[in-house]
């Protein structure tokens, strides 16, 4: 059974494909989607993928992602592809790119980092994408995927 039979096409909105299996709900939470918005949201989890073995797909009606949202998805689902749909047609295909520098999005985990006390925007450098490791440019503390996910999810809800 193909995935197209499980989930109908959307007229306008965004399809996020090639999400690592099991991460679809995290992606939705990062986008702040609860299901109470009244728009159609389709989630497909653990379907076969040539590239990934298994993958998740999320379709969201009437929503186009901002650059900041794309960056957040890139951090936790670096394999994701984002298709913008208008009138049932894919008008734009974006491959997410893990940003080399992440500004202002995350909190430094080190309680004695200068960014935790002084009014400074945090800056993390991506020192590895697989596994994801971000390093605070101020104090050198590192953030892994799990911590990044936790922070991104809790910053929304």
């Amino acid at each position, binding site marked *: 059974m193909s995935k197209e039979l499980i989930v109908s096409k959307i007229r306008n909105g965004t399809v996020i494909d090639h999400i690592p299996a099991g991460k679809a709900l995290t992606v939705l939470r990062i986008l702040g989607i609860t299901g109470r918005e009244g728009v159609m949201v389709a989630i497909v989890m653990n379907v076969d993928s040539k590239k990934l073995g298994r993958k998740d797909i999320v379709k969201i009606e009437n929503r186009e992602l901002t650059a900041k949202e794309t960056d957040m998805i890139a951090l936790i689902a670096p394999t994701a592809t984002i298709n913008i749909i208008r009138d049932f047609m894919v008008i734009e295909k974006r491959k997410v790119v893990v940003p080399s520098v992440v500004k202002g999005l995350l909190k430094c985990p080190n309680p004695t*980092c*200068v960014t935790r006390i002084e009014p400074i925007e945090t800056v993390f450098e991506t020192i590895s994408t697989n596994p994801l490791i971000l390093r605070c440019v101020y104090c050198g503390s590192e953030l892994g995927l799990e911590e990044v996910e936790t922070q991104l999810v809790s910053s929304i809800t």
Partner: protein
Amino acid sequence: MESGFKYRDVISITDFNRKDLELLFDRANTLEQYSKSRLRLLENKVMALAFFEPSTRTRMSFETAMKRLGGSTIGFTSEEAISIAKGETLGDTIRMLDAYSDIIVIRHRLEGAAKYAAEVASVPVINGGDGKQHHPTQAMIDLYTIWRIKGGIDGLTYGVLGDLKYARTSASFTLALGLFRPKKIYLISHPLLKMRENVKRYLRSRGIEFEEVERADDVIEELDVLYVTRIQKERFPDPSEYEKVKGTYIVNMRLISKAKSDMIILHPLPRTEEIDRKIDTTPHAAYFKQARWGVPIRMALLTLIFDVEV
């Protein structure tokens, strides 16, 4: 000569390369003979000493270096810093010092404070220690001591002993070794005080051989240089655990008896009981020389930053 130091901030030892440091060592070597003189090289320059955290040694060493070069210093003590810090951000304090001085030396309890100060200030900023992160001028002194006594840094076997997790000096020293080609580095510590992962990753990225061991006894015979830092009782969740392990990390005559005759011991000072005082009078003790060379190294650094010929 154009150098990598000219009007640059000194935040982390890894901001510099081997060539920079060799230039610094040559300059310090020249200036050693003037470390009790009053030169007129920086006559019109003012150094701001922003010591938000007490550190008599580092502060006095910078102050002496600046004054020996003919410059002057302004600054506040850590007690004054407390009242300054009340209601004022670090950024605003740095802006004030930036307006008054030609160079700022900052010591602060927060990691990243020096980097942030450097972003705010237009004049060069020297990190005199930020939290448990960096202490680059200490690392310069450490390497200079080895360079002076051993004639170079490369090809030697190093032991870094003590608190490798929280002591910024052991981290900065190990990072600094990564700029050269040491034969091998032994990271000797209690499992609770192991070197931070980012430092180890840096060593790997530079292709430097290192090994983590728990006991100095097991490797002492191989070492050319032993770098010792203090283990603080507070680092152990259970004080009785500290009592149990502290003996393992004390450098005494018994340990030294197995070492090479020309093995040298470094310590950033002040020390407590981690080095037996009997060692002070042996040729192994390099830590007093190390302390003395703090002034010529900082003099050298200042002349290079201000780009004055010596």
